[in-house]
């Protein structure tokens, strides 16, 4: 059998990159972080902070709050790394913590009557918008349209929709993160898609233009 040389083990012509990639696999980073390696946890943060903040932002719809809750998510993760089971995917575990943190914040804001809901004028404005062909929708307008449409979904539907459509989680992972049964998550996802379609299609011209 042919033995692999160091160069063959390298990635993109960088000797040692293959070994470094192996060293930085999620499982390895978790193992190192559990042993007290702060650098490993920093790499976990670098790798997952963006998806986590996006996920939280989609749930709470507020930039400052999303930053605050992302911080809280990683603090909790940092403190409970020891509870991470070997068979659990790191991203699934982090999304699970993020979901709990966001839900707690939403409950707290709801108690203080400080949440974005159907009463929010910017959300209601969506219904009065004129249909715009998809190629004429500028990035900023499209982002705003999606953000407002998401805000109109109920919590469970928004959670499932975000995990599937934006975070590309599998149904199995979504079930693990949310604790929903497969039946409920499929139903919620289907209904969320329908609601989003009703709100977005007329304004971006999907089905007419595409």
């Amino acid at each position, binding site marked *: 059998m042919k033995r692999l040389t160091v160069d063959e083990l390298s990635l993109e012509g960088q000797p040692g990159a293959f070994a470094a990639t192996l060293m930085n696999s999620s499982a390895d980073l978790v193992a190192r972080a559990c042993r007290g390696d702060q650098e490993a946890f920093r790499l976990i943060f670098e790798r997952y902070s963006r998806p986590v903040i996006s996920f939280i932002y989609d749930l709470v719809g507020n930039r400052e709050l999303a930053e605050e809750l992302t911080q809280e998510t990683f603090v909790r993760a940092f403190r409970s790394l*020891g509870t991470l089971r070997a068979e659990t995917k790191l991203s699934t575990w982090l999304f699970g913590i993020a979901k709990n943190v966001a839900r707690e914040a939403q409950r707290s804001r709801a108690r203080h009557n400080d949440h974005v809901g159907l009463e929010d004028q910017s959300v209601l404005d969506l219904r009065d918008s004129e249909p715009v062909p998809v190629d004429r929708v500028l990035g900023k307008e499209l982002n705003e349209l999606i953000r407002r449409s998401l805000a109109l979904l109920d919590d469970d539907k928004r959670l499932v929709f975000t995990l599937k459509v934006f975070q590309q989680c599998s149904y199995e992972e979504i079930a693990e993160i949310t604790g929903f049964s497969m039946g409920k998550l499929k139903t919620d996802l289907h209904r969320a898609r329908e609601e989003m379609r009703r709100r977005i299609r007329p304004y971006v011209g999907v089905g007419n233009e595409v």
Partner: protein
Amino acid sequence: MKCEACLSLLEEYVDRELAGREAEQVGTHLMACATCAAEHELLSAEQEIYSRYDRALAISPAMWSAIVERAAPANEVAGTIPRAGLSARFVSFFRMPPLGLSFAGALVVLLLAMAIGVAYLKTRQAAAPTDAVAKKEEPRIGPAAGG
């Protein structure tokens, strides 16, 4: 496969959640049915729109510093992550100064209470035989005094 069955599986097909045989059947049907294929295209177009969603969120360097700072008080030394083992957690429990002091105080009070209790029991045990003798002797003294 009929259109009804195909449409009911379309979302799962787009999500790549269908097992091999079902995915194959849907794929074959989509090649032959224009109506279902159009629906499939719409779903794919929607997915494309969602993939363009840009939240314009940034991760500030200050966030990592804040996380380290906030997580540090839970550890014995700032900048280290607690070991996951049970023994390490047990040891760190005692090393936490406020809890360690109060626990030591409680332990001293408990030991004092135990020492007092043991001493009290020993005194009672020592006094018990004398009482028993006195009680036994009482009836003898009684009739003699009465007679």
